[in-house]
């Protein structure tokens, strides 16, 4: 998402807030230090917790450099890496969100000249052209990512079976399925909107069909100022979002329910499904009765199957600090990550679809229904990856919470988003 995971992580791990609070930051004075920050030779790498499994595995496999590796929840990483970028001493390799739209995104950081150009690496040539905007700014590639995550409905197979329903392929079919599950006394859709990043997922699942299937040039027109959120399929998508609420398809009090509570509801069958990003499948599975108790299907955002598109965002990646003292070693490590087998390994560790696939690429079986959309050009990046500043996404989170709480109206909310979109920077 910018997102792929940025969103998922931006606030997934965000429950933690950042440490710090009362006190200040810092330390200093010259009284003899033990070691400098990742002095020559050792590569310093700071990632978000979502990447930990994949990165640790590949760092161990690399063997050509020594590493100082560290991970933390999104908010803490964002605070510490931004501080270090601002102070001119970033880690050699650090987390970067593809595209634009967040304070840690590729466009924002590369625009300040703080990311090393990776354009000459072999894997760059394999980036599918539709995904290039997520990786490139002004024609140069600044971020590595292993693949794409999709947003869809994670569902409990047993609940579907008991209600006698199958994954739907049209919006009215989707509403029917919810109605039948509701009639069985089960909550059709678990929604954990207390956790900010979760709020956006239903919008993101619908907007590809309500906006991009009809107008693939929407992002360009937004940039040019000839389109707006308010006068687009965004309004339709939010109406559909609220229709689900009006019909009683969500759990009670979604604004007070957290992501963790949402996963528990689906895993235990208290709810039939959750509209979620594929990267969090492991979180659902840990609580489920069996590994294969859960399935996933694309949320059909239109009544005409041809107009059903899906969101597939490039997953959170890594960049190299332009001022790294170990520039060559750091770049060499990223080139290594770009080798197909390593992309496969990373993708498998974070349950995403590899950037490019070969015979040995494994795609999580529950993601198979999504492949035809991706291969058929009916997948669009997560919306925020194309947004020009970092304030729009949090404003969308807040707007959804206010809509769910009945505190604002769709036209008002979208007018607000348009205003923030037009802000400079």
């Amino acid at each position: 998402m910018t997102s792929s995971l940025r969103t998922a992580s931006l606030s997934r791990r965000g429950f933690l807030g950042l440490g710090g609070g009362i006190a200040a930051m810092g330390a200093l004075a010259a009284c003899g230090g033990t070691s400098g920050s990742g002095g020559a030779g050792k590569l310093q790498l700071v990632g978000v917790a979502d990447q930990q499994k994949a990165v640790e595995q590949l760092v161990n496999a690399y063997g050509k450099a020594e590493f100082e590796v560290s991970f933390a929840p999104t908010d803490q990483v964002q605070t510490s890496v931004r501080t270090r970028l601002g102070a001119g001493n970033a880690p050699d390799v650090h987390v970067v969100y593809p595209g634009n739209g967040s304070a840690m995104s590729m466009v924002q950081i590369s625009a300040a000249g703080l990311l090393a150009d990776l354009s000459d690496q072999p894997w760059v040539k394999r980036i599918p052209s539709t995904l290039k905007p997520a990786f490139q700014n002004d024609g140069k590639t600044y971020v590595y990512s292993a693949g794409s995550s999709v947003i869809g409905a994670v569902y409990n197979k047993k609940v579907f079976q008991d209600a006698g329903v199958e994954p739907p392929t049209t919006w009215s079919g989707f509403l029917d399925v919810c109605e039948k599950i509701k009639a069985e006394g089960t909550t059709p859709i678990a929604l954990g909107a207390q956790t900010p990043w979760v709020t956006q997922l239903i919008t993101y699942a619908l907007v590809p069909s309500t906006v991009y299937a009809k107008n693939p040039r929407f992002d360009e027109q937004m940039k040019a100022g000839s389109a707006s959120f308010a006068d687009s399929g965004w309004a339709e998508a939010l109406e559909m979002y609220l229709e689900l609420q009006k019909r009683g398809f969500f759990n009670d009090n979604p604004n007070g329910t957290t992501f963790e509570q949402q996963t528990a509801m689906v895993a235990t069958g208290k709810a039939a499904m959750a509209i979620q990003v594929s990267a969090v499948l492991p979180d659902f599975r840990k609580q489920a009765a069996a590994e294969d108790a859960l399935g996933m299907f694309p949320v059909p955002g239109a009544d005409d199957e041809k107009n059903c598109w899906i969101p597939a965002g490039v997953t959170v990646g890594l960049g190299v600090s332009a001022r790294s003292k170990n520039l060559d070693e750091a770049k060499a490590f990223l080139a290594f990550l770009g080798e197909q087998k390593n992309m496969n390994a990373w993708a498998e560790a974070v349950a995403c679809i590899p950037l490019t696939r070969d015979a040995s690429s494994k795609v999580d079986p529950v993601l198979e229904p999504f492949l035809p959309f991706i291969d058929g050009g009916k997948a669009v990046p997560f919306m925020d990856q194309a947004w020009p500043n970092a304030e729009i996404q949090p404003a969308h989170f807040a707007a959804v919470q206010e809509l769910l709480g009945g505190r604002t109206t769709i036209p008002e909310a979208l007018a607000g988003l348009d205003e923030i979109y037009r802000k400079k920077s």
Partner: protein
Amino acid sequence: MTSTIGSATATKGAAPGPGAAARRRRRGRRFLTPPWWFAAPALAVYALVVLYPALAGMVYAFTDWNGLGERNFVGLDNFSRLFGDESARGSLLNTLLLTVAIVLVQNGIGLLLALGVHTRIKSRSVLRVVFFAPAVVSPVMVAFLWKYIYNPAPDAGLNGILGAVGLGGLRQDWLGDPGLALWSVAGMVIWQFAGYSMVIFLAGLEGVPAELHEAAMIDGAGRWQRFRHVTWPLLAPAVTINLMLSTIGGLKLFDQVYAATNGGPGYASETLSTVLYKQAFVFGNFGYSTAIALVLALFVAAVSMVQVYYLRGREVSG
């Protein structure tokens, strides 16, 4: 009996008068006064770690820096933007409400707990530990735990307990109801720090001489009268410290709010410190964020000075 802060001003005016006796006193005092270098190491470290960085950081408040690239001097633009910023005003109101709730309730509960354990009850030592223990846990962890306590489902967390004891009607959507989220955060903070206030009051109570109580009892004073006329006036310094610490803590409260609600739902629990954090690290408006930080610091300093001034007056007359 002067409070810690109070005595600072109390001694200030003690400048010696003219005359030989005064000169002798002054020489005597100089002989007895510790040398300046006692303060030097602290001053040096403090200047290096706190003062210099804060002064250097203030400069950003007058720039349009995004925290990454170039910065341009923009004069007072960030400050004028702040005063016209509707959402900043909303967060200021939230900050004040939160602070008032925490100051009143945390100290009220703290005082009751202190009075309760400052008796002959057998469990008093254990209870002191129980009530203070939450204060030693990291606030971020406390917020994480309380998100489970505040689960809106009827059979979980606090709602589950309310249901189990027959108070099901009081079940709430603790963090999801925009009218309630801020108060739920306050409740969590009060749970964590009521024991902290208790300890400070307890310290004050231990300073109340038992003879005074006995004398009052012989005079026929009832419980409430003894509290009102004997205990309460002598608790004044404890009250001052407690109010000052909880006010500063409330105004600067960040970890708990950010970790529990992230300012939501919507903007319902946004405070000055969550806004300044988001502006700096989420939105990339570092200059603007620094301006908010400066205004917050001035505001906290002003509030605590007024408070100390007023409370010290009460101590003297009480």
